């Protein structure tokens, strides 16, 4: 159990067990890293200031930081759950550029500093449900996606929002074995993207995003399966036609465009009726739209969610 004390030390500053155990090797590599101080860096997490409490937070117990940062699906860095935390340590996330264009009146290019200043940062504690049947509760920090979209002024032709992740074979050599194609792409219908629940996250647990959680900038759509919450975004494009999405390209009969959390619609190979909350041992029942039905159910009125899975 983590007892949070109001001291200067942040939990995220605790030396990872692996580095402590290998401290001689760690020291040697950080001396080498210091020599490259002026080059683009993999950033350690830094504290985010001025964060207020946002709406839509659950009062369920947040998943421990260690679990959130050591149990990840980030296939660019390997397919084991511990691979991203191991392999993404040198992932360069500064400088960073995000291009927002397409069917917009005012295309925008944002650098890292600008990404944090788009809107006041708020903390939202969201449930996160993976298609693999595990789930977490994560205190994200960010601002609503609709704020950024309104800034770029989508035209009348814009019907969908397409996203693309950063991909670099040199930094992500494990990706070739993953079985899915990169760069990772995702998409939302425009009304889904404009829903106040859709969050652009720049941090979690009071600090900037760790690399393995999609640093420095990612999407969080908590009513959908986790793979829709695309990480390490570099491109956002407003488009007319439904954009391709990586898991749908990998297995169209298993992963659809909408991917709404729905216990009534099974994955072809496993049931979606139950899930395991990380930290608990028995399975719990999955709730439609991951419990966010009040905010999003109306987006799908009249849609057959078995057909539009």
């Amino acid at each position, binding site marked *: 159990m983590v007892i949070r004390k109001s001291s200067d030390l942040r939990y995220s500053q605790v030396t990872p067990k692996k580095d402590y155990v290998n401290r001689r090797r760690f020291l040697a590599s950080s001396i080498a890293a210091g020599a490259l101080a002026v080059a683009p860096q993999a950033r350690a997490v830094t504290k985010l200031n001025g964060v207020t409490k946002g709406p839509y937070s659950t009062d369920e117990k947040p998943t421990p930081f260690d679990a959130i940062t050591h149990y990840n699906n980030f296939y660019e860095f390997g397919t084991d*759950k511990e691979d991203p935390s191991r392999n993404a340590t040198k992932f360069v996330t500064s400088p960073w550029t995000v291009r927002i264009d397409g069917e917009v009146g005012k295309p925008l290019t944002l650098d890292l500093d600008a990404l944090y200043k788009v809107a006041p940062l708020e903390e939202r504690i969201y449930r996160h449900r993976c298609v693999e049947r595990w789930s977490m509760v994560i205190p994200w920090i960010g601002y609503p996606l609709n704020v950024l979209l309104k800034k770029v002024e989508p035209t009348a032709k814009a019907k969908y929002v397409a996203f693309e992740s950063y991909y670099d074979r040199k930094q992500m050599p494990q990706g070739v074995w993953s079985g899915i194609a990169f760069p990772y792409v995702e998409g939302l219908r425009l009304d889904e993207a404009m829903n106040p629940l859709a969050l652009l996250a720049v941090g979690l647990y009071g600090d900037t995003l760790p690399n393995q959680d999609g640093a420095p900038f990612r999407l969080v759509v908590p009513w959908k399966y986790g793979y829709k919450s695309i990480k390490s975004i570099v491109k956002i494009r407003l488009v007319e036609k439904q954009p391709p999405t990586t898991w749908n390209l990998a297995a169209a009969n298993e992963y659809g465009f909408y991917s709404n959390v729905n216990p009534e619609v099974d994955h072809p*190979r496993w049931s979606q009726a139950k899930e395991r909350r990380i930290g608990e041992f028995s399975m719990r029942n999955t709730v439609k739209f991951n419990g966010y039905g009040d905010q999003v159910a109306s987006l799908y009125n009249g849609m057959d969610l078995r057909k539009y899975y």
Partner: protein
Amino acid sequence: MNRVLSSRWTKVAVFVLSLAPLLLLGWRLFLFWRGGLGYDPDLTADPVAYITHYTGDWTIRFLLITLCVTPLRKLFNLPKIARFRRMLGLFAFFYGCLHLTTWVWLDQSFDPSGMIKDVIKRRYITAGMTAFAMMIPLAVTSTAGWVRRLGFPRWQRIHRLIYFSALAGVIHYYWLVKSDVRLPLLYGGILAVLMIYRANMWLRSAPKRRPVTTPRTAYLRD
């Protein structure tokens, strides 16, 4: 080499080594329990999934190790190595039982209707159940007493089920991964090599029951 293989201490050593994966898992679970059941990196954030995969991995590994015994015996002329085959096979069954127990207890909470539904509907579970079911007669008839009761030829035919159990196990694994098929294919590849070796041996072996063609019986053959 044969001296080493004949020693009873070697059998003890193989037994202890075969238990090692379970002992390691048990140790990690003990530390986890002692640590207050909080996050333990050795068990990952989802210990139930970890235990399930771990026990499943060791099941297929022991099946493949068991299938290596006869090829090694033939290739390196080590008749004494056959002494370990039963033990290794039973360890495969043992880890299979642990794997099944994890699913029944931690995943399904002993719910019979849920389990039956899953076995019928989820094809990867059908494959896994088939693989396990095929191991049961092998475990039951693993003793010398059964070899005598059945007669060796019949016993040997029953024990060929291990080929199908291993195959069902590989298919079970392949059907449950989302996209990274490397480990299932690796296990499948090893199984294929072991089976090709056996097929090769079988094709090359002297035919046992073909009737002898002599001048007197020649008219019986076309």
